[in-house]
């Protein structure tokens, strides 16, 4: 078989899947872009007349848009860092567990299996300041109560805490799989050389785990930038603008402001930010690998 025919065969196998992907993913993305360039609102449900970049300009001129963008970045950094640190710690601990490992993993996947809306509703009740279990427990052990979601200085951190609770199990699974696949030889050599556990972790585990860790971080960054369910259920973007992240801002533009076009423009900006971050991250990894 010649190289050309091999390529053709490959493409012919890939074509059905690719076509489906283009239709299922490409169409909404392109349509959203057209909406972002249009004058489409919920009252005037048509693309024409096109406004060009007018919707993007409107967003760039809105202080709340920038506030939402920077808040989203802050939120993504907090949650991804939290998920990674806790996730790595749990994954390393689980490596040492020999009995009931499957049970531990099953328990860990429970938060991941629950719908984000349900998670938000459950945590809204748990964190309720007057009747919620968390504050009751704090009172029970002698602490004061905390206004988890009603204090503008604390609301974003509380939302991040709920997010970390749900998403960490995903990071654990990815990192645990990565750790399990690491070769044993470097560790054996390190032990012969007298390296302690910390040195083995820092000089062997971490560098070898980097590609897997990077994938986990990228996936979680994308997830966190898209976060919508939590602010919608937990805080509605408040108090004030304390939890008004970009995806919720896009929702407000589209459905409260009836401006589907501006909502689509905000979503496209969100997409571009995530895309840029992903490219930057992959480039950084590739440079390290080389």
């Amino acid at each position: 078989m010649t190289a050309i025919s091999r390529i053709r065969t490959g493409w012919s196998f890939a074509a059905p899947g690719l076509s489906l992907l283009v239709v299922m993913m490409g169409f909404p993305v392109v349509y959203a872009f057209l909406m972002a360039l249009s004058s489409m609102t919920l009252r005037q449900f048509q693309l024409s007349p096109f406004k060009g970049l007018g919707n993007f300009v409107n967003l760039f001129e809105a202080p709340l848009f920038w506030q939402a963008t920077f808040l989203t970045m802050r939120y993504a950094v907090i949650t991804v860092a939290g998920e990674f640190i806790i996730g790595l710690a749990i994954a390393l601990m689980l490596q040492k567990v020999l009995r009931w490992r499957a049970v531990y993993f099953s328990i860990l996947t429970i938060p991941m299996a629950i719908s984000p809306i349900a998670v938000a509703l459950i945590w809204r009740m748990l964190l309720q300041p007057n009747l919620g279990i968390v504050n009751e427990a704090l009172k029970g052990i002698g602490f004061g109560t905390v206004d988890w979601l009603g204090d503008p200085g604390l609301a974003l951190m509380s939302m991040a805490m709920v997010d970390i609770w749900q998403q960490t199990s995903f990071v654990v699974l990815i990192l645990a799989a990565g750790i399990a696949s690491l070769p044993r030889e470097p560790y054996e050599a390190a032990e012969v050389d007298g390296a302690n556990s910390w040195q083995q972790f820092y000089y062997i585990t971490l560098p070898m785990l980097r590609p897997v860790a990077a994938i986990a971080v990228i996936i979680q960054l994308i997830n966190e930038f898209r976060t919508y369910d939590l602010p919608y259920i937990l805080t509605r973007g408040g108090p004030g603008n304390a939890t008004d992240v970009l995806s919720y801002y896009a929702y407000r533009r589209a459905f409260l402001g009836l401006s589907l076009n501006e909502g689509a423009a905000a979503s496209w900006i969100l997409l571009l930010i995530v895309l840029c971050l992903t490219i930057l991250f992959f480039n950084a990894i590739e440079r390290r690998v080389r």
Partner: protein
Amino acid sequence: MRKFRFARSMTLGLAASVLAFAAPASADVTLRTLWEDVPEASIIEKLLPQFTEKTGIKIEVEKAVYSDMHDKLALQLTSPESYYNLLLVDYLWAEEFPSAGWLTDLGPMTKDSGMNLDGFISSLWDIMGRKGDYIPIIPASTYSMGVIYRTDLMGGAAFPDTLEGFVKLISDMKADKDVVGAAMQGQRGDPNSMEFSSYLFAAGGNYLDADGKVVLNGEASKRALSLYVEAIQKAAQEGALNANLDDTGRLMCSGKAFSMISYWLMLAPLSDATDCPAVAGKLALAVMPGGRGNGGGWGWGIASNVSDEEKAAAWEFIKWVQSPEVAKQRALLGHAPVQSEVFRDPDVLAKFPYYAEAEKVVESGVSFPIFTYTSEFEDVLGTQISLAASGQTTIDEALSAANKGLNDLLAR
């Protein structure tokens, strides 16, 4: 352009409704409707078998939380054919939906069927967007706001008749008794906008003056917002800035709050001795101190993008559910009436003595500004109230931003 669009919507609506009325209601038609998941919905649901038995028309009820309803309805009403044909429309959408051409004009149907429009409490027509013979929505239930408070904690004192007196009372309650003075719904958006509106109207203020000019940064507004912020800081529960209606209801039910400014019909579930034993029998309803509170209600509408048969069937339902007999049955089960006759019915009053006060609450209700971007204005206003209440902005800055927001949205 706006006027032309409105006229065009009205003409199209009129034509559609004439056609709809010409079509007979078919028993094969299934009515599909989206209702807020509140006790009121269950009350009407109990009576639905009567309707199906009488007309043969089946009805499927889907329930959702309030915050999801607007988006679900808007998506259907902008589609080629709406899944929901019979609509329950909040008064906050009473300009947006008709002006977008999403609703059938029910005016001709009311005339042809001889519906007694004068029987409805007149303030409800104002908030439901009726313009003479053009009737996009028929009042279905009311949820004007008043004060629900604990009589057992009053110690025989009279309920205050000024906003200042009320805020002092609830602040003292929190300071002196083992309760919070007021369960407040300070969450940004609809909850705090509605609650603040009651303060605003009670302080003698308004959003627009008689000429339609925005007056949200006037003295009455400053007084209202100052008192609202004082109440949040001195009298409300911890977490008030993220609390919504459900949270305040639960807190009141638990017996840990003295009062709540809320929808008058919340008194019925709170008075249930099984669900709320801590407060049942100890509650009373009062008109907002100052004499005016936020008015509100739901109304029946018919989607314009459904078949004529469906429209006719939906109208059959509206006629049935608002008939004097069914309206009384609903009221006896605890549903909020919209007709004066029902509020004053001796059987209804015997069962719910507070309906006499409830009628005053409904009659004195003032409408939140109803226009195309009402939902967005709630968000704009709610954000500013929340910022002021959490000390992140001043009263003047918050009102100035809300005033500008309303002006911008009205001009859009």
